[in-house]
């Protein structure tokens, strides 16, 4: 019944061996606190996968602490086109990641703390974990008005969301992870989490927008370090272990064999974009050319991130019909991706007569098509 038991047996986290025997007591309250030395969202998500797949959580639960450099993280069954401003992400070099747990879209930067609570499936208790976090916050600052909602959010002053939650339930193990806003750039957060997309129809799980606030706005002495420490302290107390944080390097194959493959998989186009539930784009755009403005209607079905069906409705003869149908034919089956489309349209353009006017029109149409992706 136990998956990959041989790997579980040979799990070695060399720094664990230095943890005093208290960490190895065979009580259910055993625990381990790990903190990542990396700020790369893919590496950190890979550590979660690794722990979930390989660690035996029966005797010892794990708390994983991590922070990421700017990244948008969407839930397992979400649509990135619907959830965030992809063009802005690409412009600002903000990474896009899809996690394996459910829930909605969040923005991470170094001012946000991520906490992952690993347990057996049976002992998976989100509410208890969040109450632990609230307890830690109140121990730091008793006046802080923080509480857990029944949606598993943590609210500050009854109105501002400071933490969101998601979970994954596997065969024998489960994890619950949540964010905690300490000093995140709220301006970037709100602009990247706003999608300008119109005309998208999908049954992907939607996010529920919320007003957010940073804990540091409430009290400037609440830095990430202070908060991480307080949460680790409370976890250690509740699990009757030493308040010792074990640092872990997510790139270290000797400690986490197979980790780099996991990180690679999380970065593939197939995972990030290709796992988007099937959706339909039904929209139009205006092209201003010389003295006229034309309306172009586009209808596309996208499945596994690829264009399954494509219809472009252009005014007659604005472009040679043969060229238009070639465009539609080439787009069909291709990734719903601006880079792939650039390659495709450049290739097609070479088959055209060297007519400046034609090329301008073609470029206008194709630029607009790419903006949809």
């Amino acid at each position, binding site marked *: 019944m136990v998956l990959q038991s041989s790997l579980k047996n040979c799990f070695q986290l060399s720094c664990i061996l230095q943890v005093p025997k208290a960490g190895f007591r065979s009580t259910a309250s055993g625990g381990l606190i790990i903190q990542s030395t990396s700020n790369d969202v893919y590496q950190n998500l890979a550590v979660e996968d690794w722990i979930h797949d390989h660690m035996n959580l029966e005797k010892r639960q794990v708390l994983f602490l991590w922070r990421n450099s700017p990244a948008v993280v969407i*839930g397992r*069954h979400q649509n990135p086109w619907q959830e965030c401003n992809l063009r802005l992400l690409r412009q600002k070099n903000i990474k896009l990641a899809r996690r394996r*747990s*459910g829930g909605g879209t969040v923005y991470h930067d170094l001012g946000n703390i991520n906490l992952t609570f690993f347990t057996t499936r049976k002992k998976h208790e989100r509410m208890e974990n969040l109450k632990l976090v609230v307890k830690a916050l109140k121990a730091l600052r008793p006046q802080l008005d923080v509480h857990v909602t029944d949606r598993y959010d943590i609210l500050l002053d009854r109105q501002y969301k400071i933490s969101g939650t998601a979970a994954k339930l596997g065969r024998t193990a489960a994890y619950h992870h949540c964010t905690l806003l300490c000093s995140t750039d709220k301006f970037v957060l709100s602009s990247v989490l706003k999608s300008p997309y119109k005309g998208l129809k999908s049954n992907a799980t939607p996010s529920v927008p919320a007003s957010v606030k940073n804990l540091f706005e409430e009290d400037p002495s609440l830095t990430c370090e202070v908060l991480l420490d307080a949460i680790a302290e409370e976890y250690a107390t509740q699990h009757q272990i030493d308040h010792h944080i074990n640092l872990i390097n997510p790139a270290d194959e000797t400690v986490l064999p197979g980790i780099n493959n996991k990180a690679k998989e999380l970065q593939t186009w197939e995972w990030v974009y290709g796992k988007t539930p099937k959706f339909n784009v039904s929209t139009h755009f205006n092209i201003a050319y010389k003295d006229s403005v034309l309306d172009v209607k586009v209808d596309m079905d996208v499945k596994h991130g690829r264009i399954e069906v494509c219809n472009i409705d252009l005014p007659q003869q604005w472009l040679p019909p043969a060229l238009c149908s070639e465009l539609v034919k080439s787009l069909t089956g291709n990734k719903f991706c601006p880079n792939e489309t650039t390659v495709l349209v450049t290739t097609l353009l070479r088959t055209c007569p060297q007519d400046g006017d034609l090329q301008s029109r073609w470029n206008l149409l194709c630029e607009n098509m790419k903006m949809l992706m």
Partner: protein
Amino acid sequence: MTGNLSQVFRALGLFGLKKFGSASAAPVQHSYRSARKFTDKHEWISVENSIGTVGISNFAQEALGDVVYCSLPEIGTKLSKHDEFGALESVKAASELYSPLSGEVTEINDALADNPGLVNKSCYQDGWLIKMTVENPAELDELMNEDAYEKYIKSIED
């Protein structure tokens, strides 16, 4: 009335054979529907005409809460027993689904795309997840029948 026994049962609106003796005691006829069998991960499978229909149990759907999304495999996907074949999302938790048997996916329940709540409302009927071939019928014997599953649930609830 002519026709075989299972046609008679169906005509009388009787599903499943557990009330009339175990499936294995009945003569082997392709049109028999086998009694529902359960895995310890709360999936069920019921085989008819060599095609298994897979879903999750009432215990599982209650524990999950309202299902908001069903992630199911493509038709033609080959699964081994215990393979992860998809996930159900409910209350921000993605819960993995494991194949009860080895076989190939022949059909997926399209109704779940627009109505994932069917898994909660009708987990044994309209909320079925996938249909698959049964590559190795002996694997079916390794699963729990309904009585054994009921006992199993009681034991884990304690």
